[in-house]
């Protein structure tokens, strides 16, 4: 496991502050989505509390709008980092007409965002890994310099589609990053029920590509590793597998009761490694952040989400006939 001793280079403090802010916004938004479900105001919630360093750290390594992004349902932090407004994410939560990601059709957090090259995904685990490989093949064929990143959990690596996608990407040395957020559980199943290896990154060896395990709760390490890997991809050195070890603090989804399969002690232990606390402490120690500035960031995030919730909840539902649109292209 790589834990880089990242010294803050001059000129990077704004960047790190921005990352920190997005991690906080992502956490506040995620907490709120869960709460809205618990209050009976949202039918379903799936969120990524605990994954913020992995998500925001990796997303900050991307060239937004140029690189292709295939997030999974837990990637609130990726979307926030890419610049999706909480309001838009909340329109999806409430399945409203204006939901730019699916028009209220998909479960929350199944994003599509063409402007940012965020590609639509289903709920079918691992099915989008071959899409990432295909997108990267097209980039190469058409001679474009962009890189594709696809996100998934460690459970997803059990699916045949994981294998076929990584194998295809390796054969053609495609510019694609397979980014695994390993939180140790697939719903209730702990990692050893999914694989007989300690590190998801070891899967890479069967394909002849490099795998790299990083501390997924350390945003700066994630950023640096992902940057390096993307750089290698861009230089045509082929696909890579990154495993970011982390933990989810919330139940799998609003339908799950994680007390059936995780001890509170384990959760407690990981809470002490909270990725947001960790980056905050680092920034405070380095003098990039002050307690006051931190308070302002948190208050602003709360305010932003409050306003977004209020507006999104009031947005109109789609009209009935909307259900028939876009089965096929309408101009065809």
């Amino acid at each position, binding site marked *: 496991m790589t834990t880089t001793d990242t010294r803050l280079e001059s000129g990077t403090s704004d960047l790190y502050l921005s990352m920190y802010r997005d991690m906080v916004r992502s956490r506040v938004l995620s907490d709120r989505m869960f709460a809205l479900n618990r209050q009976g105001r949202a039918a379903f919630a799936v969120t990524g509390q605990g994954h913020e360093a992995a998500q925001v750290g990796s997303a900050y390594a991307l060239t937004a709008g140029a690189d292709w992004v295939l997030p999974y349902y837990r990637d609130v932090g990726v979307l926030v980092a890419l610049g999706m407004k909480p309001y838009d994410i909340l329109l999806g939560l409430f399945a409203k007409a204006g939901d730019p990601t*699916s028009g209220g059709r998909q479960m929350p957090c199944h994003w599509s965002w063409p402007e940012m090259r965020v590609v639509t995904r289903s709920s079918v685990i691992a099915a989008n890994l071959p899409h990432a490989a295909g997108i990267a093949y097209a980039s190469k064929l058409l001679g474009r310099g962009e890189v594709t990143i696809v996100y998934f959990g460690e459970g997803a690596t059990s699916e*045949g589609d994981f294998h076929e996608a990584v194998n295809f990407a390796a054969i053609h040395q495609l510019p694609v990053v397979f980014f695994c957020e390993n939180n140790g559980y697939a719903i209730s199943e702990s990692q050893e029920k999914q694989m007989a290896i300690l590190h998801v990154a070891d899967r890479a060896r069967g394909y002849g590509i490099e795998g790299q395990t990083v501390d997924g709760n350390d945003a700066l390490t994630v950023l640096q590793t992902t940057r390096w890997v993307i750089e290698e991809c861009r230089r045509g050195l082929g696909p890579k597998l990154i495993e970011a070890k982390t933990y989810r603090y919330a139940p799998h989804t609003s339908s799950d009761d994680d007390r059936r399969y995780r001890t509170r002690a384990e959760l407690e232990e990981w809470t002490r490694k909270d990725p947001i606390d960790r980056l905050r402490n680092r920034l405070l120690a380095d003098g990039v952040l002050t307690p006051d500035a931190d308070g302002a960031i948190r208050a602003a995030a709360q305010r932003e989400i409050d306003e977004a919730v209020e507006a999104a909840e009031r947005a109109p539902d789609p009209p009935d006939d909307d259900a028939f649109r876009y089965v096929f292209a309408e101009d065809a």
Partner: protein
Amino acid sequence: MALKTYIEAIRDALIEEMDRAPNMLVLGEDIQEGGVFRATDGMLERFGPQRVLDTPLAESSIVGVSIGMATNGCLPVAELQFADFAYPAFNQLISEAARWRYRSYNGWGCPMVVRIPYGAGIRGAMYHSQSIEAMLAHVPGLKVVMPSTPYDAKGMLKAAIRDPDPVIYLEHKRAYRMLKEELPDGDYTVPIGPARLRREGDDITVISYGLMAHECLQAAEELAAEGIDATVLDLRTLAPLDRDAIVAAARRTGKALIVHEDNLTGGFGGEIAAIIAEHAFDDLDAPVRRLATPDVPAMPFNGALEDFLLPSREKIADAMRDLAAY
């Protein structure tokens, strides 16, 4: 007798059969903690992790290893977490399980059950709402059952487990806690194959299966108050199909409405309509009608849109009135 929900009926069947057959096991994702719908709640403690098996997140192999287990003396009952996630296992179901006996000229059998929660109406959105029976009931070599009551759910699951061939057992998620019934204590089975006349009436015939059969029955009761007397046929099993019951029910009233939750075109309703159009032709007094979800790619998350698309008691009652008036 005891009052049981649909899902309790399923759990009781699993536990009773596990008690009977030491070679039986249940397997699937999150099975040990009870399954996402809690069908296997408490089974880990009772039967241990070898017989209550958490599988990797990999549907093709869930069915594939089950086939192997069945071949080597076990009785696997696999769970696919949602019907929407059954497609990765289609090759194992269709190319393998369904053709296992036929292609080996009875050399090998595949006594296996695959339980699959299906259906909409729970705000499950596009990938937690689908119906997949039309594809599977089309495959010779698979038995496909879709019980609509707790009584049938328990009895047919037991029959499925004791069946020497692969049985796809489709259980409606919305039925799990909605449907309750007094069930007899102890062992009973409900045979795979025969449809069940759930109501007899001379004005029109409604044919359905799964949770929609329940909705049809409700609609029929509603219409009885208006003086329209309906026969309601609950197919219960789609493969092998009870053609005689279909033809007899259609003949009786000369007017048939078929209802299913799956989308219309190419749905299993087409098969039922075709059987009626061929074998009850002389007795038909009206066009054979179908009511189904319109042809859109699965249910939207938005609740209003889901209600708009999904067949319901009200829509069924309307279609029945319409047909009765023909």
